[in-house]
């Protein structure tokens, strides 16, 4: 599955995107975040406040309890500051 990161989430993780093989038992966005945080301190830092980081699946905003089955691309980013 492709993961993409933006703004300070991207900077903290240290890469703009990556392809990951997600292990079984990871059903929701929140599950995915918990698993990512086991992968290293850069992920722990990026997701240190899980409530702040937003997610999108295939270009659509989703909540942490959204299921990830069938997703092609999952994005994580800070609250938006455009406009």
């Amino acid at each position, binding site marked *: 599955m492709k993961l993409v990161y*933006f703004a300070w989430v991207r900077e903290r993780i240290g890469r703009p995107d990556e392809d990951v093989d997600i292990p079984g038992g990871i059903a929701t966005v929140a599950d995915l975040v918990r698993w990512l945080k086991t992968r290293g301190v850069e992920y722990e830092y990026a997701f240190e406040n899980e409530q702040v980081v937003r997610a999108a699946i295939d*270009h659509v905003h989703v909540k942490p309890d959204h299921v990830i089955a069938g997703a092609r691309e999952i994005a994580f980013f*800070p609250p*938006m500051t455009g406009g």
Partner: protein
Amino acid sequence: MNATIRIQTEPFDAARETDLMTAGRADVGAVVAFTGLCRDEGGKLSSLELEHYPGMAEAELTRIAARAEERWPLLGLTVIHRFGMISPGEGIVLVLAASAHREAAFEAASFLMDYLKTRAPFWKREHLKDGTVGAWVEAKVQDDAAAERWA
């Protein structure tokens, strides 16, 4: 009605976009044009860096525009958002809303901006005149409140 949605690095021309929307027609009674500009923050800012999520930015602005079209009787809608490095005094975002009457045009433009601020995937970072790169701009609680008034 087809909304015009563009994500671009180049500056935009509000007058040209308004002409494109209204030329040759006489059913439009009201056009509201909102331009969001880059401020220099009292002289300390050299430029604003705008990062965006390609693909999702267009998709989300298209969804927001569709909601505005469902809600108000619009005759034209244009949203242009820039990304990249933007200098103080330059435009960042342009929203144009046209309708037969002013209420719809004002409300749709205001709705677009409130939703865009909290839902369109763009992030700002300040580059300062002293050469340092400032922190990412923090989202404002009042922007969430502004978006919620349309719920």
